[in-house]
């Protein structure tokens, strides 16, 4: 196994009328080739911003992103265009992520046209489109359909096909199944797993759905208000959580089983937004175990057990 992507001290701040919004604050991690890193957190925790910074849809404020050992944080122009072939993205909303005026075929073929993959050979390109459509489970007869004629599941397959068209090594998946019905969601998750096996893809899987993230990821990062609070392998995280937020988050998932009565940790208060955050732990105001120290100094990630990192003053 070798490292494919490494993120070092990534920061992204937005200027808002109320002050500086710390959307992503000092996040570091790395991903091995062929694995899936799950990024979980609730709305406003900066998980989508993180994905967009990695894929160059947003310019990070500070920090570095390495892809295959190369620093790609500040690339632009032709080099950036070239890197698009390696990194792609699957979006959340199957209704707004594809252009309603384009046919299925033209959506999937657009990346090939832009990057002149087939040097204008229309026949070859058409064949390639049909191959990808088959891979993602879209019937050939849909090639000339418009998105509004299709349901959410099929639209999401188009989004996946578009991301695959350039044969990338790495895909950022931003809540790819959260807008879908359960039965369709399972179909798409299986498809994504199959594609990973066949093509050796590496995923960052951003989601708020813990059961989905457990199912698909090898490693998981838990985020809260722009900071990374806990990071370890997927199996381990669900066995043992250290950070109080992770504990509360996991206990809050409704489980589809009758007569299971679990002890649920109810958090007080609401998620605030990280505008001009106070020093100290972002979670401290809601934390059940907060000490004075938690309000003064921001905790750093510590390796409590091999491979299990937690940012909390309790440990």
């Amino acid at each position, binding site marked *: 196994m070798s490292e494919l992507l490494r993120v070092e001290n990534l920061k992204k701040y937005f200027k808002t009328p109320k002050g500086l919004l710390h959307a992503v604050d000092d996040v570091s991690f790395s991903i091995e080739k062929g694995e899936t890193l799950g990024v979980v957190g609730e709305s406003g925790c900066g998980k989508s911003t993180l994905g967009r910074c990695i894929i160059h849809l947003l310019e990070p404020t500070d920090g570095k992103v390495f892809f295959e050992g190369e620093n790609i944080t500040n690339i632009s122009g032709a080099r950036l265009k070239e890197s698009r072939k390696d990194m792609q993205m699957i*979006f959340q909303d199957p209704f707004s992520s*594809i*252009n309603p005026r384009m046919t299925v075929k033209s959506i999937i073929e657009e*990346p090939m046209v*832009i990057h002149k993959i087939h040097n204008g050979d229309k026949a070859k390109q058409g064949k390639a489109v049909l191959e990808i459509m088959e891979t993602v489970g879209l019937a050939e007869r849909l090639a000339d359909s418009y998105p*509004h004629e299709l349901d959410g599941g099929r639209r999401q397959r188009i*989004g996946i096909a*578009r991301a695959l*068209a350039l044969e990338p090594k790495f895909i950022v998946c931003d809540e790819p199944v959260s807008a879908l019905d359960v039965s369709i969601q399972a179909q798409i998750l299986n498809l994504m797993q199959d594609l990973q096996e066949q093509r050796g893809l590496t995923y960052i899987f951003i989601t708020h759905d813990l059961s989905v993230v457990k199912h698909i990821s090898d490693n998981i990062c838990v985020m809260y208000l722009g900071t990374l609070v806990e990071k370890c392998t997927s199996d381990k995280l669900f066995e043992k959580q250290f950070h109080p937020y992770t504990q509360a988050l996991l206990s809050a998932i409704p489980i589809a089983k009758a007569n299971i009565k679990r002890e649920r940790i109810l958090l007080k208060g609401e998620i605030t937004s990280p505008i001009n955050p106070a020093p100290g732990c972002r979670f401290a105001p809601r934390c059940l175990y907060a000490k004075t120290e938690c309000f003064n100094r921001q905790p750093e990630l510590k390796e409590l057990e091999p491979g299990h990192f937690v940012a909390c003053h309790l440990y």
Partner: protein
Amino acid sequence: MSKRNEKGVKSSFWYDAWHRLKKNKSAMFALIILAAMIVCAIFADYISPYPYDLQDYSHTFEFPGEQHLLGTDNFGRDILSRIIYGSRISLLVGFSSIIAAIIFGGLLGAISGYYGGKTDNILMRAMDILMAIPGMLLAISLAAALKPGLINLVIAIAIADIPGYARVVRASVLTIKEQEYIEAAQCIGASDLRIILKHIIPNCLAPIIVQATLGMAGAILSASALSFLGLGIQPPTPEWGSMLSSARQYIRTYWHMTTFPGVAIMITIFALNVLGDGLRDALDPRLKN
């Protein structure tokens, strides 16, 4: 919706819009009137009973009758023929000034909306300045500064219309820019130009078309008004506005000289407005299904 496709009938946004428009009786009626007018304008040489500049001093100020269906004017020219030829000018000015305004206004609006920030600020403040001058006054001063004539008339009207289109396009670009498919296009490496032309413009065509249809009515009115003031088309070329202008001194005695060109303007404007409303309903995605 998917059913239609399985039956093999092409279904697209424009097909659906046309389908909805067809159901709107008044809009279809307006469309037929406009089509008839365009046909008249193109084949004016064959349709009109007399040449537009044929002066017949033995038949001046004739009321509508068998020989001259809509009567004759002070030079004995056939009014019907002049109205038919006049539609050429009106439609030509209407179309070309609107197209010019759409191209420039649309591009400015798209750039302004897409790039935002300073670019947006500078462009939009310039548009605000243009908008602060009443459209008619701006057209009059432009037409007066340039020499009277067809092309200058088009330019004067187009410039006065640009801010309107720039705003409409900017507003829809701002909404479309937030859609994930724009991010998706950036992700696959599409250039800004490609994103604007291929992903943004086609998605804001609908409001532009509606605005253009309604705007064309205004452009035709402006053209007539400028010609009425002597700043537009010069005689003897027939133009509805200038016909009205030269007939106004006879309005008490020879009503037909002012009435018919006026009616021609009215029908055209009415048809364009009805069609514009119909298009708005047909193109509004909220009314879908």
